[in-house]
């Protein structure tokens, strides 16, 4: 059972990683607009013609 002395801190490290990932997602604006992406997913199933346009860095 003494393995718990390693497993528990390891689990905490995983929690911190997950929390960091979520905070990163929030800070890059992925949760700012919760309704439009749902629509975008539904309708954007064709090839994008405007390949030449540069992709935004999603900072906003």
């Amino acid at each position: 059972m003494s393995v718990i002395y390693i497993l528990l801190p390891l689990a905490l490290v995983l929690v911190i990683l997950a929390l960091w990932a979520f905070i990163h997602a929030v800070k890059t604006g992925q949760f700012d607009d919760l309704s439009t992406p749902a629509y975008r997913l539904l309708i954007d199933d064709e090839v994008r013609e405007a390949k030449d346009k540069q992709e935004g860095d999603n900072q906003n």
Partner: protein
Amino acid sequence: MQFCCSGCKTVYQVIHDAGLANFYKIKEQTDADKQAALKTGRAYDALDDDEFLASYTRTINEDLSEVELYLQGVHCAACVWLVEKLPLLQTGCLESRLDLARQLVTIRWNPQTHKLSEMARALDSLGYSPHPARDHDRRRARVLEDRKHMIRLAAAGAAAGNTMLLAFALYGGMIDGIEAGYGHFFRWVSMLIAWFALLWPGRVFLQGAYSALRAKTTHLDVPIAIGLLAAALTGTVNTFTGIGDIYFESLSILIFLLLAGRFVQHRQQRWAMDSLELLYSFTPEYARVVKGNDIVESALEAVQLGDVLQVLAGEVFPADGVVCEGESYVDSSLLTGESDAQSKSKGDVIYAGTTNMSATLRMKVEASGRESRVGKLMSLVETFGSRKAPVVQWADRISGYFVLVLLFLAALTCLVWYFLDPSQAIDNATSLLIVSCPCALGLATPLALAVATGRAARKQILVKGGDALQHLSGTGKVFLDKTGTITEGKVSVVEVVGPKDMLPLASALESHSSHPLAKAISALNPHLGSEATEVEQHVGEGIAGVVDNQRVRVGTFDFVSKLVNSDAAIEYGDNSKVSELQAQAADWAQSGLSPVWISVNDQVCTCLAMGDPIRKDAKRSIETLQQLGWSVAILSGDHTKVVDHVGSQLGITNEDNRGGLSPEEKLSIVEEWQAKSPVVMVGDGLNDAAALSVASVGIAVHGGAEASLAAADIYLNKPGLKALLELVLGSRNTMLTVKLCLGLSLLYNIITASLAIMGIINPLIAAILMPLSSLSVLVLAFSSKAFRRAL
């Protein structure tokens, strides 16, 4: 293909030519409401102004700038698709992202090769007129605040989940025994996580309490902070000594539950602010100023008093003023609630916010911006909008007593136990402080209200403030606006006297006019082959033309009978005499309907009654409201006789019904009644906005003006008064739940506090009772009947 108007047709062409015809397929799939395209054809020159560019746009690099624009008219998935295809339609536009909920599009374009006005014109050509989004910084700050709330909630949730896992092990150990080494290890790890939860996401409560104490006021944060701190400190001491209870799992779960409650509340407030901002952006910001022979598009701030503006048909007047050239119909239903468009010619007064319906007008500016009538109404809305909800005030008020009673009891416990058993004195006093942390109390009201609000929103009833539901659960006075609230808000043909075979002719003729009555008449026979020729419009009188080789006139009696040879053409078809028709028309006028006459080949034949029909569910809903103890009355900007007629049809007592009211008069009536009893104001127009915001509860109904939406506490997003009834019944259930939740949480606090005072609070009891109180409040709030049942 059929189009409702020329705007939609040109938009169709633009979309089709750009190879974006998929829009219409998507639109069919999404089953969204059909809306007419709002194409304005403006030049948007003002967007290229250097000053504008400097303050409204953001430069990313030399070849890339970004701007945020509010779009009027976006409402469904197909709109998202179309707006985001802007780079295909307009060269120089690199990216277009739409936030549908906020109606905000973010555009990135190349300022070296293209102007911003080109982007704006492209959007306009799609039927979405863009408006610059003011206050970029404030909006940005709000987004950052949203993010902070979310991160806090996540951190608190992670902490709560993990301390709970550790607590399972510890509780198991209490029953079966646990090796001392593991026990200490788990307690130390719990302590670590709990302090993390308290110092990061839980800091808001400590800060709230601190600033309340510094300002020498109290709010519910103070007793909560006392409880949290007492728990954290006791737990820490007990972790170090290795004996006694640690309260860490209760602590971090409570922080999480409280934050979840606040997050829901914060969302509600955000929604209100967003809609107010949208309203500001939709009032026109540009005007076409006539300078000599030139017409210059200029920002509204730059327009001087005395300037002459040109306003095209279909545009909203940007300022108050007097007509100096042209004649046209003006729709002022937004501002005054009057359902009929009025004809305006030289010398007539025009208000900002009203819409020019039929022809180009020139006007001389007398007041603009904040000084205009609409501006003054808006500032009324703003000042009244900042009032504080009574529920919150009540909670803040009792928190002061709560803290005093708590500290007094703790001191008393300490003192009494000092004489009974000095070793337990401090322990019992601190456990009292911990277990009586009013977390369930702090959660009960906001949570029960938030759950009700969420359910109501799914039923298309949007509630902004919990206090509104509180007022609606009692009884009082209900003032209903007439146009658009009790009635459909749209003029249509209510009755026809005379031969009906004349109607297709009149429809064909009226399809050439943009007068609102004409639209209702042409809607009678939309599919018809015959076209009207030689159409002549006479403002204020009617319209004449030739349809199927017959001379048709539609309009006032004087107008249609002008050419009538009185001997030859008194009778037509089924022998209905003109004098009989006239008597009928006089009757209609008495009851507020407008008669419209039709003559064919100079013979007066048919008379139509035009009016605003009463909603089908109005009578039953009003009767039920009256049975529930509400006193119902009508306040309207329309004529008194129309109001009386509608009132008598609905069984509403006439003494309090008032017609012909200005927005200011509505406001003062509501204020007057407010002194005697709770007042509920139900309305839809900008003219109701001030009254809506000052009433105990302001309810804006479906299809209403943005201003009334922003001013109201509640917005009914579905037609009819049945929603109002649903709202009142739902509020009663909600308040019942709130009272149950409050009672239950107080009961828990009393039980745990008395156990602690008596010194029989066992660590396990505390650990179970504290989260249990919050949990049962949660369950109770979610199992509430409010807004559940369909009517």
